[in-house]
């Protein structure tokens, strides 16, 4: 089959480009200012449908089950469908009562007793009592066993042994080893409480939405990567005190759609087809300008947990096995210009292994300063000499670092250029998500990008400690055995005490160690953005930077 197509004349291409440019310009000027600003809101109006446009659904693991899913967008859905025992204050990080009115933690940190609020029911009418809570933790333990410990929620109930129903409104959770971050874990979506009947279903059925919660909304339908619909739960009266509205939600319906193209998602917001555009990667500077120009607002909050960082492969024989090369790498990265160039002038500059919203965060900014001359000096000392082509060599080996990347992004190219300035050749190895595990397993990389969202520094052990990590290979390659021993010691120190000062000290030492030993190479602070229509009021982030809908209402 031959296609003999002549190429168009240059004149036509020029015309086409001119037309596009004109369209782009008129797009900037034509979106009408049609909404009152969010701050001149009157009394909330009940009713209406809120439309939210998400990033595409998880390509490798379709799952909306609270305990099993790690997908950020799904956790927003879950937050509004299923309540948790406690809530976390986004401003202070404090743990506040929710389904549990109060709790006691035993002196050895192994027993948590929760006193449940009365009158709470799941949307199928069954009461949310001590037996229901026990059914959740036992069911979760079964999922951990079923998946060989790889279920995402496994990290939240580390060391869980069993639960005891003391009386209908009192439940005791017992651990075999202390787990100091468990109280924070009870505030997350991953340990949201679902009805005991949900655990009669298989873990796969729960992934497809086969579960019942006690939240302000019920899950009406879940069509993966197409549409998720929530309906208001009549009679809801036990919202967390962190919301203004603790009763029934204002909105009738919430529709989450999934849009792959960033520009289309933003355009949908500007044209009024959706009320909230919720991107995975931060908005571009241009998109933010477009949104604010058209009378909508841009909300943002850094996601708690490890920042977007590179973990090295320090196995013998790789360039990064040498600590001095790792130290030089810190000086080669220009984090300030990365934040400014990729995300805009006002974007926060990453200043440590964790995002700034993580509790116990300690800034390491002075160790992460851009210093190309210092990097060159360290590399010279390590035996990597500049060659005529501007790259460094040692025993006629080029200083090449390989990083797998699954999506095209300008940030990776910027980093490539920054490393080139000091003579390091960074190879961007394009690959599919499905091939990553094999790459890690074969150690066929030098820098692997990873992150994790949880408002607790202990989250990092589920990347770095081979005993718990989802990718054992990535964890094993990231540290030397000595450093790993130190790391696990610090994690344990923070996890096995109930003294806040000890926890604070342990996590401060941990954050120092991560940079001093070259374990974590921060790239950028992960910020959750949201473009919110001028018609929408009461927008709020949870402590995990998810979207909370209790206070949201729409002008009719």
């Amino acid at each position, binding site marked *: *089959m031959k*296609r003999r*197509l*002549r*190429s*168009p004349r240059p004149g*036509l291409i020029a015309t*086409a480009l001119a037309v*596009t440019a004109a*369209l*782009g310009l*008129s*797009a900037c000027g*034509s*979106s009408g200012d049609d909404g009152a600003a969010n701050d001149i809101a009157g009394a909330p109006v009940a009713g209406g449908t809120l439309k939210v*446009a998400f990033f595409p659904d998880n*390509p*490798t*693991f*379709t*799952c909306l089950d609270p305990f099993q899913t790690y997908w950020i967008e799904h956790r927003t859905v879950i937050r509004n469908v299923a309540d948790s025992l406690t809530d976390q204050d986004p401003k202070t990080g404090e743990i506040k009562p929710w389904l549990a009115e109060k709790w006691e933690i035993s002196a050895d940190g192994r027993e948590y007793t929760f006193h449940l609020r009365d009158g709470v029911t799941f949307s199928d009418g069954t009461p949310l009592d001590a037996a229901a809570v026990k059914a959740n933790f036992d069911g979760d333990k079964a999922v951990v066993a079923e*998946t*060989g*410990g*790889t279920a995402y929620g496994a990290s939240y109930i580390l060391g869980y042994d069993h639960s005891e129903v003391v009386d209908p409104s009192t439940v005791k959770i017992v651990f075999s080893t202390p787990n100091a971050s468990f109280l924070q874990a009870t505030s997350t979506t991953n340990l949201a409480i679902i009805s005991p009947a949900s655990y009669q279903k298989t873990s*796969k059925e729960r*992934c*497809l939405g086969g579960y019942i919660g006690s939240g302000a909304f019920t899950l009406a339908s879940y*069509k*993966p*990567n*197409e*549409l998720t619909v929530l309906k208001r739960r009549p009679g809801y009266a036990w919202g967390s005190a962190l919301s203004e509205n603790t009763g029934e939600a204002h909105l009738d319906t919430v529709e989450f*759609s*999934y*849009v*792959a*193209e960033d*520009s*289309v998602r933003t*355009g*949908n917001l*500007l*044209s*009024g*087809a959706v009320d909230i555009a919720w991107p995975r990667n931060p908005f571009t500077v241009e998109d933010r300008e477009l949104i604010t120009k058209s009378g909508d607002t841009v909300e943002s909050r850094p996601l708690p947990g490890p920042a977007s960082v590179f973990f090295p492969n320090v196995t013998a024989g790789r360039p990064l096995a040498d600590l001095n090369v790792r130290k030089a790498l810190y000086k080669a990265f220009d984090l300030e210009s990365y934040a400014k160039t990729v995300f805009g002038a006002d974007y926060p500059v990453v200043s440590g292994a964790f995002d700034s919203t993580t509790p116990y965060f300690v800034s390491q900014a002075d160790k992460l300063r851009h210093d190309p001359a210092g990097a060159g000096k360290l590399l010279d000392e390590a035996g990597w000499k500049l060659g005529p082509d501007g790259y460094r060599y040692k025993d006629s080996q080029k200083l090449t670092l390989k990083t797998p990347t699954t999506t095209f992004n300008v940030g990776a190219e910027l980093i490539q250029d920054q490393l080139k300035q000091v003579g390091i050749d960074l190879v961007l190895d394009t690959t*599919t*998500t*499905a*091939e*990553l*595990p*094999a790459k*890690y*397993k074969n150690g066929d990389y030098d820098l692997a990008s990873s992150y994790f969202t949880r408002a607790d520094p202990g989250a990092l052990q589920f990347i770095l400690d081979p005993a718990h*990590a*989802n*990718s*054992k*290979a990535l964890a094993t390659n990231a540290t030397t055995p000595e450093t790993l021993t130190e790391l696990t010691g610090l994690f344990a120190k923070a996890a096995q005490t109930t003294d806040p000062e000890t926890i604070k000290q342990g996590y401060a030492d941990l954050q120092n160690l991560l940079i001093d030993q070259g374990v974590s190479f921060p790239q950028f602070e992960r910020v959750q953005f949201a473009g919110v229509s001028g018609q929408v009021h009461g927008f709020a982030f949870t402590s995990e930077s998810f979207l909370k809908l209790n206070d949201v209402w729409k002008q009719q």
Partner: protein
Amino acid sequence: MTRYVLGRFAQALVVLWAAYTVTFAVLYLLPSDPVALQLGAAGIETDSLTPAQLHAAMAQYGLDRPVLNQYFSHLWGFLHGDFGDSISKQQPVADLIGDRLGPTVALSIAAAALSLVGGLGLAYLAAYVRWRPARLFLTRLPSFGASFPQFFIALLLIQLLSFNLGWLPATGVKGWKSLVMPTITISLLTASMLAQVLMRSFDDTLRQPYIVTARAKGLSRAAVQWRHGFRNALLPALTILGVLVGLTVTSAIVVETVFSRNGLGKLAQEAVLAQDVPVVLAIVSLAAAVFVFVNLLVDLLYPLLDPRIVQGGRRKVASS
């Protein structure tokens, strides 16, 4: 005639089987570790499992049997309409495809119809017009239409028709309105190809001696082109019809992604990225089946247009 039809049917079946087998071989016999790959798609890293767990996981996905055994059981399942379970999507492949088939079929039919109307119309017009500049313009149009990248056209259309004018929804599957832009995007390429082939075949046909005869008998140009030229010129265009329908399916991958339409194209893209082998295998086989079916249809239509084909005339018709 019967022999011709039976021969075509047999050929179609062989092509279908070959397509399935090649896809299976590519997916299962690549120098990669299908076990790690498929478990990786399910979010399980093989090195974090104990040998017992690994074996259980392999048994769950039927990966512990010899390849030939897997091939035949897969094939047997296919013949029964059982395509196995998706690895990444936690549900049977048949359900997935059933869910996603509608939007893509609607899109393919709409795009094929629009391509036919657009392509035929343009070529017919170009053959009829005598004024040189206009004729030149019309014959250049298809190369122009076929040179635009589809994602670019799609984004342009969204910008203009959704964001600026607000006439059509930019994303999703919401009635006929959401079908307009994806259809135009796909048809631009397929209509251009069809028009190109048809223009050239009009050129050839209208130079044939029987056309001269018809004109000498005093028929008008319009009548000659309609009654004597069109049917003969249609043959090569019919040949590429199969290719065009195939193209609407492959175009669906790009177009459905941009327009967030949950169809087979998007499923194919998701499955390939996740290396969800059972889904990829089912989609490729399905696409091959459509392709084979359309070509079979074309083969059976030939004799109606040109009786010489079956009677073993000298004329050869390319059949892809």
